[in-house]
């Protein structure tokens, strides 16, 4: 009786362990499947023209997505220029001044809710505020939409990284007579620099892969995005339009765009993670 019970428990354990290992294997297989499909189908579109030429109408060959790649870079950089300073300031307030106050708790909740807010609704909001009143789609609107998505991420990472800096550091600098703002900029930011940069890098890579907030803000364009006042092409929206099109060569190019976007985003993410691990291990 006792023996049978023990065998039974061991069997249940073995089954559970087996299932658990299967799910982990499943996760790995799915990642490998998605990445290998993207790579195999995307590599067919990759050639020199793909990186340096403008899109061509369906049926013509030698088209490229150079304008979309440049557009994504411009949109992401503009969004970063808007959201990173504001996010660092807001994160500083949470970590240094708000701390355990009630107002800080509210701002923290707002930031977390905004992080999870549906990106398409952010697109609708920016459309209503920056596209409809001006009567045309614009790169500015797309950049603002991306900035709204990045802002809470930068804020929360900055806060977390600043809180890792020991209070003794602040206190010793203050005791030397430095004003608080000098202490924060010269000592605390410097100590938290690696972590903050990692957070910013992750926020940027997330924004670069976004599509939904750009659909009704920067729209898309088959030409070079010469000004932020005009519709701005982006790799992700082009990918969406091409993948949904009935033309074979456009679909092939869509896989190429997917490969470029995924490669860039994953490379940034992995670099940021390795970097963070190395810097945290050293301290």
């Amino acid at each position, binding site marked *: 009786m006792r023996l049978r019970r023990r065998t039974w*428990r061991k069997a249940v*354990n073995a089954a*559970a362990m087996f*299932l*658990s*290992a299967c*799910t*982990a294997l499943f*996760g*790995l297989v*799915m*990642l490998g499947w*998605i*990445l290998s*499909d*993207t790579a195999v*189908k995307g590599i067919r579109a990759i050639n020199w023209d793909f990186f340096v030429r403008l899109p061509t109408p369906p049926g013509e060959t030698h088209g490229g997505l150079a304008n979309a790649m440049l557009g994504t870079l411009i949109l992401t950089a503009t969004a970063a220029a808007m959201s990173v300073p504001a*996010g660092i*300031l*807001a994160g500083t*307030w*949470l970590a240094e*001044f708000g701390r355990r106050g009630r107002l800080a*708790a509210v*701002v923290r*909740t707002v930031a977390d*809710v*905004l992080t*999870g*807010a*549906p990106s*398409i*609704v952010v697109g*609708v*909001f920016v459309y209503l*505020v920056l596209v409809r009143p001006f009567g045309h789609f614009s790169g500015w609107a797309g950049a603002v939409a991306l900035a709204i998505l990045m*802002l809470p991420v930068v*804020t929360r990472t900055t806060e977390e990284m600043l809180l890792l800096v020991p209070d003794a550091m602040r206190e010793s600098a203050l005791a030397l007579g430095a*004003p*608080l*703002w000098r202490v924060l900029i010269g000592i605390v930011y410097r100590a938290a620099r690696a972590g903050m940069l990692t957070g910013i890098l992750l926020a940027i890579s997330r924004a670069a*892969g*976004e*599509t*939904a907030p750009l*659909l*009704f803000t920067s729209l898309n364009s088959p030409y070079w995005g010469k000004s932020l006042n005009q519709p701005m092409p982006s790799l*992700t929206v082009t*990918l*969406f339009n091409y*993948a949904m099109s009935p033309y074979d060569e456009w679909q092939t190019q*869509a*896989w190429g765009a*997917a490969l470029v*976007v*995924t490669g860039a*985003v*994953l490379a940034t993410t*992995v670099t940021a*993670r390795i970097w963070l691990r190395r810097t945290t291990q050293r301290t």
Partner: protein
Amino acid sequence: MARVDSITISPAPDSSGRGRSRRSASVGDAIFRGLTAGAALGLFVLIVVMVWVLWRESQPAVQKFGWRFLFRNTWDPVTEEFGALHAVYGTLVTTAIALLAAVPCSLGIAVFLAEIAPAWLRGPVGTAVELLAAVPSIVYGMWGLFVLAPLMGDTVQPWLQEHIGGPLFSGPPMGIGLLTAGLVLALMILPFISSVMRDVFQLTPAALKESAYGVGATTWEVVRHVLIPYGRKAIVGAVTLGLGRALGETMAVTFVIGNAHRLSPSLFAAGNSIASTLANEFTEADGDVYMAALIELGLVLFLITFVILTAAQLWIRRLGQQEGR
């Protein structure tokens, strides 16, 4: 030693100079404090303005349809009759499928990473799962449309029809539809839920686990009776975060849900979620009521995720305070 001497010996700066530097320091501090507080408050203002603008711009639809908007099953731009029921239904069904598939699977992955895997395997597998979270959602959508949907249509759906059947699995197996959309969503939220669960399991005090192992519990019994009860609340929080993400996801769903304004009991049928309706129709909307109806859809989605995420945050925060005590 020398330094201390030099400080004590050096003459005190004259009082007026010290006063000025202290004043300029306090002005600098006030400016810096004001800037940071302004930025923090900006986040709060931003979310208030977002809700207010969406509310104001959806007024034509709110006034025309009132509360019935949420429960009407029509979507006719020609006669300007709109209702959100099918889109809300599509959102809820795909999210439910995603959670049903992703939660048990995440639990398995978390248990594997926290308890089973040998140390050399934890790093690579953990990184791989986190990379799944970094893949842009549009790539999931594209992969779902060109790879998963044909597989579903040719193999999985006919098999389900043959062996299980019923109204849930009726209709032509097209590949795209609510079921496929839900499965793609499941893949997307899987890494989020499993990485939080793994963290929770790893934070469980070693003494608790070791005492359970000490009285002869198997690994599964430790998971079942120690890890899961101990991290119960955090696990619920993690699932809620995944839920919020699934509700608002646009691109992964838009590709595979089929984009049809109708309500069907079959999971094979094409449908629409709130996010996919917006993605497909927002730029084409002509007419004030059509546009306002779409904006109201966006507002509904925002409020649903807002409520769920706020509840999850408060839950996790309360949990943190309890742990701290």
